């Protein structure tokens, strides 16, 4: 393994993307993700890649559409309001079966909101990103090493399933620094026979398109796509469990809030309250079956979110509401503390245990 170096989350995302073969990056500055673009601006020309600061987020996502149509690994990044602007383009990527990696370093919203960290784009990322029947893969790292690793995986998954993949981070992860072992540069072996990269007069033209004149044809295409989504839901789910075996209360948290929750778990255990954690790493596909298994032994669930409570609905669905599900949260860019989570744990203990 390479010697560890100190990196900021946003830089680690950018460098890992380059090492995973990303050769086109189209960006637009917005706090707290600007370092991704700044890093790419410096590095892409050095390795023969393309960095372009677009005139807007809308332009950037459509540049990604063009680049990825040729089979080139392409990425864009933004933070919450910028992702909303990219929404139309992401729907077009999904409708054209194009791979791409999109990074969202989430900040407080709605509207212009603020620049401090948040997780209030969960519903947007996993359910309502844009118009039409489609999903994108959503991966949620909780440390900078995992940011490095998941960027590589996001490119591979996007290419394998021909669909956009999002890294959903937050301002904390984007801005903080941690030691990481960067992945070695690696070449993808995934074939892209669909790419519009020149026929050399040896094959028919490849067409990249999301417009279908006949509704029955569109219906068939969408249904085929959903068959692929079902395959992904069966095979690509990722999660991590922490002290769930004997836990009466299981915290469900992803990203930075899962790290804060871990402190609360240790404090609760010191008081004799058996608490564990289930951390979804893929937010879509959501680890429904695994979480439902945890509900066989857990007596109550607590989601910890930097939002008004968005993932909580997926938790209730996954366990068919057979256990009470509580929420500990802050929003608007405020970061929850371990003590706030611990207070909620004590309250749950009083009510249900």
């Amino acid at each position, binding site marked *: 393994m390479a*010697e*560890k*170096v*100190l*990196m*900021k989350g946003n*830089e680690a995302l950018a*460098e890992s993307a380059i090492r995973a073969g990303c050769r086109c990056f189209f960006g637009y500055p917005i*706090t*707290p993700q600007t370092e991704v673009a700044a890093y790419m601006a410096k590095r892409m020309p050095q390795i023969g890649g393309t960095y372009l600061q677009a005139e807007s987020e809308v332009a950037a996502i459509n540049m990604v559409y063009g680049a990825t149509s040729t089979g080139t690994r392409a990425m864009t990044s933004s933070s919450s309001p910028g992702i909303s602007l990219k929404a139309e383009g992401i729907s077009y990527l999904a409708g054209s079966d194009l791979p791409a990696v999109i990074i969202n370093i989430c900040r*407080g919203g709605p509207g212009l*909101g*603020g*620049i*401090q960290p948040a997780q209030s784009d969960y519903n947007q990322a996993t359910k309502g990103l844009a118009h039409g029947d489609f999903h994108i893969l959503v991966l949620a790292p909780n440390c900078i090493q995992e940011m490095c690793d998941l960027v590589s995986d996001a490119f591979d998954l996007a290419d394998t399933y021909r669909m956009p993949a999002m890294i959903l981070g937050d*301002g*904390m992860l984007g*801005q*903080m*620094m*941690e*030691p990481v072992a*960067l992945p070695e540069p690696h070449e993808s072996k995934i074939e892209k026979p669909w790419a519009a990269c020149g026929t050399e007069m040896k094959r028919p033209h490849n067409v990249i398109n999301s417009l279908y004149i006949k509704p029955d044809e569109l219906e068939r295409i969408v249904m085929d796509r959903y068959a692929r989504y079902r395959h992904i839901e069966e095979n690509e789910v990722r999660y991590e469990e922490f002290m769930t075996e004997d836990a009466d209360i299981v915290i469900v948290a992803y990203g*930075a809030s899962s*790290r*804060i929750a*871990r*402190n609360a778990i240790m404090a609760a255990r010191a008081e004799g309250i058996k608490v564990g954690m289930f951390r979804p790493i893929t937010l879509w596909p959501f680890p429904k079956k695994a979480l439902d298994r945890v509900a066989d032994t857990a007596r109550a669930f607590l989601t910890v979110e930097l939002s008004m409570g968005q993932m909580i609905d997926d938790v209730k669905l996954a366990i068919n509401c057979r256990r009470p599900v509580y929420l500990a949260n802050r929003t*608007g*860019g405020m*970061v929850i*503390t*371990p003590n706030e989570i611990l207070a909620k744990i004590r309250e749950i203990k009083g009510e249900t245990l």
Partner: protein
Amino acid sequence: MKKITIFAGHYGSGKTNLAVNAAIALKRRHGSVILCDMDIVNPYFRTKDSEDILKEARVRLISPRFANSNVDLPYLPAEVAAIFNGENISVIDVGGDDSGAIALGQYASRIENAGYDMFLVLNARRYLTLEPDEAVAILHEIEAASSLRFTGLINNTNLGHESTAEIVTQARGYVESVARATGLPLVATSFREDLSPALTAQDGAAWPITIYEKPGWALY
């Protein structure tokens, strides 16, 4: 002791934490110490995070009015002029790289007249300055952007929570290379204070420092 001490260097090399440590240490010897936050690049981690600690140490903090709020306004307050006044001794925390140093450049002639030290903060384990050449390139970029000259080097090599005494000593050759290439002296080797017993025999003055974490961000 010069009237103004400036910490500059690569983004994430540890300038802010050193500046806070330096200001608190200077306050023990001087009547009036100012810590001036000139970092208008970094939105989250800045001297403002240490506001309470500085207040307790009676160090006057000058920072952009909206620092750590929900808006991103890259401007410096008029109050910065205080660093040139009276009996004040000042520490300036500069934003990373040349983009951070541009803000410093507007005061270059006044800083020069007042008398200053400008230290390049080095971290041999910080990506993009892993090679001495890369650190030297950033040094030249910062000098060009700020219209000021560095007067010394500080070896602040660290790996965050995974720092060890060995990581600090391993950087000795790296720092020597930068010193040779620039003709600048190594003025201090800084390290987390609990590493002190192993590191007091370091080249350059040993400088044990306190790590001031962002309050409320309790990440394991």
